[in-house]
């Protein structure tokens, strides 16, 4: 018994050496993957993109010092709940399903979903055209939910990242992909995406929800109120428009 206690004490000591006390800064979680134009890592190790600028603006409006915490998309909600971050700002859409586990701020942007397929393919936005076709989507996204609900006859294939399903579209392993219209733009204008086009816009408010918001733990109501005030402020004082101008030719806030 004594031995066990010594071992446990030793382990605890080793653990405490390797663990740092959590910082008081506000930690903002983003997905550790390239998702241009919203967020991507530059070669110098910094993150850039519309959403990264937005995080900066919102933090300035809240008077908070923020730290960006990149984490894998499929582990991002567990990481929030385990307090590895305080807010998720990773183009996460507000959905009823997610609201069972986490709370959301007001939306800060809303862009339509689209289906992309090779030019010359007969696929369009309606369910009949994808019957028996393989459709690629990113796992646990509103786009995956849409495909599950509306494209029951299609063979849905899940990918961990947006990038991966586009790679497979190029490789011909999927016939079409469903994703965010703006995130598709950099791909469609790249060399690899030359042979593809947007075949249709997909609409279903029940699936897509009101738009993209910041994800928070349910108990952090004060932080949610602060974040909402900051989003409102950024919208009203023109910062939002300033940032959007750098990336888009239109307002992505949505109606």
């Amino acid at each position, binding site marked *: 018994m004594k031995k066990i206690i010594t071992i446990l004490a030793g382990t605890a000591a080793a*653990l*405490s050496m*390797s*663990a*740092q*006390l*959590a*910082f008081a800064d506000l930690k903002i979680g983003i997905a*550790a*993957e*390239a998702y241009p134009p919203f967020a*991507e*890592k*530059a*070669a*110098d*190790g910094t993150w850039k993109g519309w959403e990264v600028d937005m995080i900066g603006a919102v933090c300035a409006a809240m008077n908070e010092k923020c730290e960006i*915490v*990149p*984490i*894998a998309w*499929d*582990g991002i909600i*567990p*990481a929030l*709940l*385990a*307090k*590895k971050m305080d807010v998720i700002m990773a183009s996460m859409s507000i959905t009823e399903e997610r609201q069972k586990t986490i709370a959301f701020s007001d939306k800060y942007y809303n862009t339509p979903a689209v289906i992309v397929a090779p030019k010359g393919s007969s696929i369009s936005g309606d369910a009949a055209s994808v019957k028996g076709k393989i459709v690629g989507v990113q796992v646990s996204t509103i786009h995956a939910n849409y495909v599950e609900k509306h494209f029951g006859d299609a063979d849905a294939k899940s990918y961990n*990242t947006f*990038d991966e399903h586009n*790679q497979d579209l190029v490789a011909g392993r999927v016939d079409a992909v469903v994703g965010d219209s703006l995130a598709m733009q950099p791909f469609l204008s*790249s*060399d*690899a995406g030359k042979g593809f086009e947007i075949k249709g816009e997909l609409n279903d408010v029940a699936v897509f929800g009101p738009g993209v918001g910041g994800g928070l733990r349910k108990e952090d109501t004060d932080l949610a109120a602060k974040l909402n005030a900051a989003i409102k402020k950024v919208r009203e004082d023109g910062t939002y428009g300033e940032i959007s101008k750098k990336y888009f030719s239109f307002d992505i806030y949505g109606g």
Partner: protein
Amino acid sequence: MEQALEYLAFSPPGWGGNLLRGLLSTLQIAFGAYALGLCLGLCGALGKIYGGPVTRWGLEIYTTLIRAVPELVLILLLYYAGTDLLNTALESFGYERVDIDGLWAGIYVIGFVQGAYSTEVFRAAFQAVPTGQIEAARAIGMSPFKSHTRVVIPAMIPFAIPGLANLWLITTKDTALLAVVGFSELLLETKQAAGGTKSYLLFYCAAAVLYLLVTLCSNVIFGQIERHYRRGQPAQT
């Protein structure tokens, strides 16, 4: 070709520096985890051979469970659930919350997994040492401890090295699993570089070459170690 060299340049806008930083993290975790695994393995093997029934059963459960569950599941468990449990425990005792960073979480999990495998490697190696040598050591009056440090362990090492070399290579590849928790090791850096530049083939090949280099260097080092410990033994035919 020029484009490729530009992408792989060491300073931004090239991504070469990022890949090497990723490789460094990968090696850090691999070394740490491997060292932890060796300690656990050595203790585990001795426990399995000389321990009482409780120790033996405990170790049996450890090696069976760990070798049954995929590392990926263990990493996710420890990183998310483990940190949460630890913090809940700390808070209930009135301590501050801690944040275990990816590096240490990786070392602990992979080390813990490696410990189970190396326990078995060491156990087999111990049992391969000829009984006559152990009896001889005891006969000239060495204490059990001394006979182990002087005779059994040195005689056991040549038997363990091939298995341990294998485990080391597996460890270096296991680190790639930490990309899942968003830890910037070689694989995640590669993915980000590939995603950022859209030249997937180039970067995945570059990463493969780096992993291969690690393997080749390791093989040379393990060859040296094996030669050293096999000196005086009849040549293997």
